[in-house]
């Protein structure tokens, strides 16, 4: 009984020591207390405007007809595109694209109106600068929908035998298609990227914090931060427990802030029940802390951890399979991704938070997080025990 009590005391002593570093060590303070608070707000601000609106395009109107004017008006009225210039020739418009004044060109040929009235097929040319896909999409999709509308009107005007409007409507399009964006319905960039970033911030700052604090410890060549903690049986386990507990306490607050407060603050879709969120965040934090403790042995000097962790942020985002569909990620990288806690946490959080799934729906991810937490914790304890000298 006494022994258990003593060991618990050890754990608490390690915990107290680690808690102090949060405020004493400026590196740990910066990454574990400041960054989790500020970074999400910064990212939310960057992607605040969500969607691409009013992409500037130039129009070359060689047709000068009611039809071409209709096209220009409709395109300009569309939310995604704004007709910024009327160019006299295609060359002039191209120069505008080169000067980065516009991102694309709509070219209306001279024969446009004549061809339509004579019943020949004609075309509208769309030139898009492909450097940014979101802008290309806005330019192309606007042209498609405007031309689609105009085609329908033209078809209707050619139908002489039909009488009622309903008849016209049906003959112009016998089948109606309804598009329903079910999750993240505004199709916004923030609604898509922010949940991933929030989860990633948790893991990366934790790894940075643990790495820095462990690095300092090793640098001072002082394994035993607590004087009476003797390198005996179960030493690594107690150290890992005590440290893990300290990080877990601080990060419980951050986990709640990132998964509940920040999405509310920026009006992101957040429809998760607290039980489901808890079911994800609990094993996620454990997995991240164990992962961080395990990796910390790689850090000979505390600064090296910065190089390693900072670089992995973007690759980890990709491995989660949200920004790039999982079905298109090569199997090898999927397996690498399975080693990283954020991969599963991002998937689970996005589905629970923005798609209204329940903990039962994300069972495979939760299981993976628990396995990671247990496995990394064991390895971390062993590593700590082995480096006790």
């Amino acid at each position, binding site marked *: 009984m006494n022994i258990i009590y003593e060991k618990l005391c050890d754990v608490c002593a390690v915990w107290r020591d680690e808690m102090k570093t949060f405020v004493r060590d*400026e*590196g740990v303070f*910066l990454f574990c207390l400041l960054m989790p608070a500020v970074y999400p707000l910064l990212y939310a*601000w960057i*992607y605040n*405007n969500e969607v*691409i609106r009013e992409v500037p395009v130039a129009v070359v109107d060689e047709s000068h007809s009611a039809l071409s004017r209709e096209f220009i008006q409709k395109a300009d009225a569309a939310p995604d595109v704004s007709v910024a210039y009327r160019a006299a020739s295609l060359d002039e418009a191209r120069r505008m694209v*080169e000067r980065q004044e516009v991102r694309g060109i709509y070219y209306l040929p001279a024969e446009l109106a004549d061809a339509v009235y004579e*019943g*020949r*097929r*004609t*075309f*509208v*040319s*769309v030139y898009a*600068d*492909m*450097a*940014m*896909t*979101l802008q*290309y*999409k806005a330019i192309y999709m606007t042209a498609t929908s405007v031309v*689609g509308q*105009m*085609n329908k009107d033209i*078809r209707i005007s050619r139908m002489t035998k039909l009488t009622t409007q309903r008849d016209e409507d*049906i003959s112009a*399009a*016998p*089948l*109606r*298609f*309804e*598009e329903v*964006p*079910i*999750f993240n319905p505004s199709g*916004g*960039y923030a*609604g*898509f990227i922010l949940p991933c970033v929030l989860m990633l911030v948790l893991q990366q700052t934790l790894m940075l914090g643990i790495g820095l604090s462990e690095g300092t410890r090793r640098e001072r060549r002082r394994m035993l931060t607590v004087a009476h903690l003797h390198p005996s049986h179960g030493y690594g386990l107690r150290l890992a427990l005590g440290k893990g507990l300290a990080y877990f306490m601080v990060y419980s607050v951050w986990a709640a802030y990132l998964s509940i407060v920040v999405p509310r603050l920026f009006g992101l879709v957040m429809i998760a029940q607290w039980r489901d969120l808890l079911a994800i965040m609990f094993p996620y934090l454990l997995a991240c802390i164990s992962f961080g403790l395990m990796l910390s042995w790689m850090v000979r000097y*505390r*600064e090296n951890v*910065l*190089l390693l962790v900072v*670089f992995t*942020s*973007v690759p980890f985002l*990709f491995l989660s399979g*949200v920004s790039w*569909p999982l*079905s298109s990620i090569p199997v090898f990288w999927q397996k690498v991704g399975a080693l990283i806690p954020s991969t599963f946490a991002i998937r689970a959080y*996005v*589905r629970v938070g923005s*798609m209204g*799934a329940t903990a039962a*729906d*994300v069972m495979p991810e939760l299981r993976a997080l628990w396995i990671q937490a247990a496995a990394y914790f064991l390895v971390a304890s062993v590593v700590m025990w082995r480096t006790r000298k």
Partner: protein
Amino acid sequence: MLKRVVIILKRELRILQRNPIYLVFMVVMPIVAVLFFTTILSSGQPTEMPVGIVDEDYTPITRRMARLLDAFQTTRIAGQYATVSEAREAIQRNEIYAFLYVPKGTSAKLLASRKPTISFYYSMTSMTSGSLLFRDLKTISSLANAGLMQATLRARGATDDQIMTYLQPITIDLHQVANPTLDYNAYLSTTLVPGVLTLFLFLLAAYSLGTELKFETGPNLLHMAGDNIWVAITGKMLPLFIISLAIFYSYELYVYYILGFPHLGGPWPLVWLGLLTVVASLGFGIFMFGLMPQLRMSMSICSLWAVLSFSMAGSIFPAANMDAPLEALTWLFPLRHYFMVYQAVVFNGYSVANVWLHVVALVAFALLPLFVYPRIKKALKYYVYVP
């Protein structure tokens, strides 16, 4: 003076040899990054994305629609579901990304000309798959309608040409300048990989100066450089500069000439843009160290900056659509200028004159350290490291 630079250079080479971190982050990790991004995006566009079907009607007409959907390169029918909520749950379990819902009585209504409605549910929580699936849906809906009208018109004795003219009096003639296949690899890797390379350069520049303070070798370094800070920093940065430039050029050679990414600007812009990006990043790292002559703080700030660069470059979410103050702040990120010059000069092959301000900005980043040389000198001389 040149002799002293060589002495410092040799000293630096010994440091590089001794500390494996340099080799790892100058050579190994950049290679890993290049391979990572180019292989993960190697399909160019996501293909065969799993979609589902809820066919409550199940007639030859609706089955034909399902086949149409399956035939698209981007989609693959992964499952048939009995009800909409079952399909929705499948999306929540990540088994499918979208589904087509055909309500009961669709075919009958179609035959009776009562304009039935078919719904396409897609998830925008993944933007890439969501928008590509949306595009496919648009195509399918017009194809399906065209198919139905075609049948009617053919029955009335119209020729194919007449039918096409009737269905689509105006077509869109699309010119996807410079990247006709809409290859996402060429689009994403060309900013993400340089982003990672600049990140390493920021950090390594600050690291190599900071470790002089940490190991208290600063006075020795200055002494060897004849108390000349120019000589000291030039000699120290030369190996980092040369190796990183070689890595940057290898990356360019690999993606533009082996993977064949679009580069209408030809080889020369690649050469000078690579050089400018490397010196600008080194300049930024040295400058940050000069502002905060301390290993830990300068590296921390450099990492915060580098991670933000990926968003602030405006290569995915355009800077023009950010709030005005943020758009102005993008000027503080070297990666932003790299991207602006890259997309105009390398990718589209436009003249440099169109983006000259960004070139100037890159040069300015390279010159920034000049302002802080005195500070660095002072730090090297008098700083005492506290772990």
